[in-house]
């Protein structure tokens, strides 16, 4: 018997397909919202080990 032919997989098929579709829809939703927010010009900053100049104290020259 192949490992993936166990009757457990049959019983859980609807759960797995359903969950897969839900997760896929969630990814699409987050991606769409991100595109919309970027398109609308919202500032999105990533603090990934790069110094943010806006957070540094202002030095008068």
């Amino acid at each position, binding site marked *: 018997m192949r490992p993936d032919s166990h009757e457990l997989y049959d019983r859980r098929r*609807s759960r797995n397909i359903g969950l897969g579709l839900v997760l896929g829809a969630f990814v699409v939703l987050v991606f*769409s919202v991100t595109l*919309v927010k970027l398109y609308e010009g919202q500032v999105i900053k990533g603090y990934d080990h790069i110094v943010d100049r806006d957070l540094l104290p202002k030095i008068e020259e």
Partner: protein
Amino acid sequence: MTDSTWSTPPRTHEAQFGDYVELLKPRVMRLVIFTALAGLLAAPGFVNPVIALASIICIAVGAGASGALNMWWDNDIDAVMSRTATRPIPSGRVGKDEALAIGLVLSGFSVVMLALFANVFAAGLLAFTIFFYAVIYSMWLKRATPQNIVIGGAAGAFPPMIGWAVVTGGVSVESVLMFAIIFLWTPPHFWALALFRTDDYQRAAVPMLPVIAGTRATRNQIFAYSLILAPVAIAPAFTIVGGPVYLVGALILNAMFVHGAWRIWRRNDADAAADRMLVEKKYFGLSIVYLFIHFGLFIAEAALRLAGLTTSGWPVLIGAGA
């Protein structure tokens, strides 16, 4: 949860995806989605359709999560009531712990995502709604007082306010009126159901009004609430979200609703037994249609405004623009 003799039925088979969907009370979710959408569309201002869709999904999932928490807490009384005995937990399709986990995870998830998609205020309202339904209503009021659904009805009344907050980031007279419509509609709606399901509630020891105060008092209360509801439901016609279409629709709907309540009020138990609670059942059905059409009227007015078909000189007597 208080009956020590109760134990969760053994799991009879592997839960299917549909069993988990059922745990989220899809019929209640439908109403939540519709009323939240009405609040969102009626609100002044613009929100991108993608953000609107994402927000409505978050509100629906939050409502579903509170439904799962309600089923987890109430699984003992659900098992003894014929209306709820086939729900996923009492029928042994989903485990209690699973329901609790799903309820908690989806609650947190929906609130956080709504804060990211829309704004923190709308997310806060959603969090409060979930807390109110799961803790204040399910855990506290439902088994403690015949006024359970009067106060608990607030949980079902928040979705249009959340939809409104997604667009405006706050609360206003118009969204409070939308809240008040559902809040005042809930008692006559559930008491009509309780009149023809009294045996169920009695068996489950849930102190619904007909069980505690009798059917005469319940009939009086249904009529009284329908009279209080009518002016509140007509009032939005004279706000920025109302108009002639809303006014005509609201007048007809509330006349029907008060008439239905009056028919219930003038009957006694012998009349009701003679036609097997036909009038009460019809009133319960009418109450569902009543709410759907009412919020449909808000959407219709919003569509008319979008199309530029507003009535010039329409009196705005309440709220912004008064």
